[in-house]
């Protein structure tokens, strides 16, 4: 199974010459291909830094990140090149507002020169229909609900047949009802496409519901504090939330997350 990410002893220090702030501290994490890995931590703990390093938006100070054995970035080559094998789904959404949803979805393969425009549009329409998004193809992103926009964005990513989807708190701005719909939609997409999901969130319930593995991160500097294997079998549906095992896992981890949240809060107070 492709899409295995290995994060090996990664350190990220912002501004190494001035007031050095350590964002990521000797962090190691192994993610198998096709796994849903949920990264949980309080806001501002440095988990986005990790995602940006994988995506190639930022460099790392030392360590190494590989994808299927190939080095993305390392001490010697600190910044990965962004590419369509690792696609980010952004916190606030990044569908281009001046293109229709269909044009947005078709964009990747056209820019890479993999498909002609006509073929890409055709494939995009098929994929949108498959994902239950028929009917909004010719709308602009600004005309559809934010939950719908997130789904379009995920389809846009899948158009490129990526190995990994990097999701940066994509459902943060959604209300809890919409969120639950989005979770099931995401799982459906995942069961059909089998990509690796690197999913950042601060919502523990979301993490345990979706993930094979939940990495609870310490607050700045960021490193795994506890890695939880969620032994609830996939495919999952909303019934899981009320199951005994789910409650047990929640209990097992809530304390660890709370501890970090408290630390982050106190650190914030000190800085303020």
């Amino acid at each position, binding site marked *: 199974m492709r899409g295995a990410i290995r994060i090996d002893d990664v350190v990220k220090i912002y501004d190494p010459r001035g007031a050095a702030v350590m964002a990521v501290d000797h962090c190691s994490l192994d993610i198998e291909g096709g796994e849903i890995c949920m990264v949980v931590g309080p806001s501002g703990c440095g988990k986005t830094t990790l995602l940006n390093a994988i*995506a*190639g*938006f930022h460099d790392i100070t030392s360590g190494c990140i590989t994808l299927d054995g190939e080095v993305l970035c390392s001490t010697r080559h600190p910044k990965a090149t*962004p*590419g*369509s094998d*690792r*696609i*980010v789904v*952004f916190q*606030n*959404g*990044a*569908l*281009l*507002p*001046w*293109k*229709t949803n269909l044009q947005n979805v078709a*964009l*990747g393969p056209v*820019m*890479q020169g993999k498909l002609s425009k006509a073929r890409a549009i055709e494939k995009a329409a098929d994929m949108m229909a498959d994902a239950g998004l*028929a*009917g909004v*193809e*010719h*709308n*602009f992103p*600004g*005309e*559809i*609900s934010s939950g719908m926009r997130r789904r379009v964005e995920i389809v*846009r*990513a899948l158009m*490129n047949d990526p190995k990994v989807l990097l999701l940066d708190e994509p459902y943060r701005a959604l209300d809890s*009802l919409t969120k639950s719909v989005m979770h099931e939609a995401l799982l459906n997409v995942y069961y059909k496409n089998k990509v690796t999901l690197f999913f950042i969130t601060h919502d523990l319930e979301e993490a345990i519901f979706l993930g094979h593995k939940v990495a609870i991160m310490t607050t700045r500097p960021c490193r795994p504090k506890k890695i939880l294997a969620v032994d609830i079998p996939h495919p999952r549906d909303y019934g899981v939330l009320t199951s005994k095992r789910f409650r047990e896992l929640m209990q097992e981890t809530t304390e660890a997350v709370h501890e970090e949240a408290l630390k982050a809060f106190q650190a914030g107070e000190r800085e303020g």
Partner: protein
Amino acid sequence: MEAIARLVTPEIVGDILKQTQQFEAVSDVLLLQIAALGRQVSHEPGSVLYDAGDRADDIFVVVAGKVEYLVDPGVQASRPARILHPGDVFGWTALLAHKPSRLSKAVCIEPTEIVRLSGEKLLRALAVDSETRAEVMRRFACLIASDYPAPHATPAAASSGRETVAPDSHRINLTVYRLSQWLKSPRPYLMLLGFALFLGFWYLAVEVWKLPRFAEMPGLTVVIKEWLSKDPTYGLSIYTGEYYKHIGMSVWRIAQAFLLATILGVPFGLLLGWSRKFNHYAFPVFEVLRPIPVLAWVPLAIVMFVSTESAVIYLAFLASFFATALNAMLGVESIDESYLRAVYCLGANRWQAFRHVIVPGALPFVFTGLQISVGVAWFSLVAAEMVSGQYGLGYVINTSYSMVRYPTIIIGMITLGAVGYLTSALVRVIGDSLMQWRVRELAMKGD
């Protein structure tokens, strides 16, 4: 088959309605009232909810089951057929006041639970809050525009607001809709009142009260008489060819200056915003030259250009160029970093990122810049025409001053204002038509 009817509470219906774009903005309390109007009906597979041509009375909410929705083959629609699932709402035609006929057919293909809402009652419920009502109807209009995009309807059908849409649907629809909204709002009448007050004051101050500083000014009636005279005292009125020659000349100069400023200014500004290196070279020079007023350039312009015509155009061009370039640069800087990151993820190279993100992303600012630049071009043109040149509105004002033709000065001024306003409005219309995404986004927000 035994259909176990689940009783659907208004809360559930309200939640479903809330999920639709049309009702998203409606308050929960009002939605609950609306939902309470619903009547739950169970249908067997195969039962027809309505057919094309039926009178549109109700809006339908699918609670369970599946409904096949087929648009009448005679109607061109972007979605001629689709399956509706629980949570879908359809039959929006019922919201139109005069109950037009259905353009599609809806058939249950599974045992289906439907909640029907009377369109008339719904509108009455919405009427308590006119703002919400307008918002719902606006979103409804967007839905129609996107569902029935192709030319099909007869003009009569379109003007009667049926589910069909006139040729070149979006644009015309939007314009007509806006116009009708504008006429319904108090704005045009306030505008007329504003003009009436202004002209009234002018008339009274100069011709009736003869206020100290106004006594020497040409009065409203004098100016209008001169303007509309077939035989004007000072040689300029709407019946003389000269008048149009002056307007034409000024417009032609503006067109050249503005075009030049746009062709050079937009790419220059985009580059200033896009390339850090280029910015470091060019921006300081740009910022030093920008505040220099046009009049200060006049001597140089006359030395630089042999023909006065080019000198005049150059002067009008200068100020517009700065306004255009600066706004294009700000436009690039306003673009959200995520858009760039997203296209790099999708495999864009630098040029593709420029084309797909930078140019369209900066466009709203670019067009604001162009509107400013057209205005700026006008007032620098007048300054330039006063200095040199033959013909043109600035020339009219200046020569009339030296030849003591006061009413003609006023005619020149008013004409200048009106023509300037028109050119600026034209730029705005062009901008809107190039940025449909933005127009629709703003329409959704209710602007």
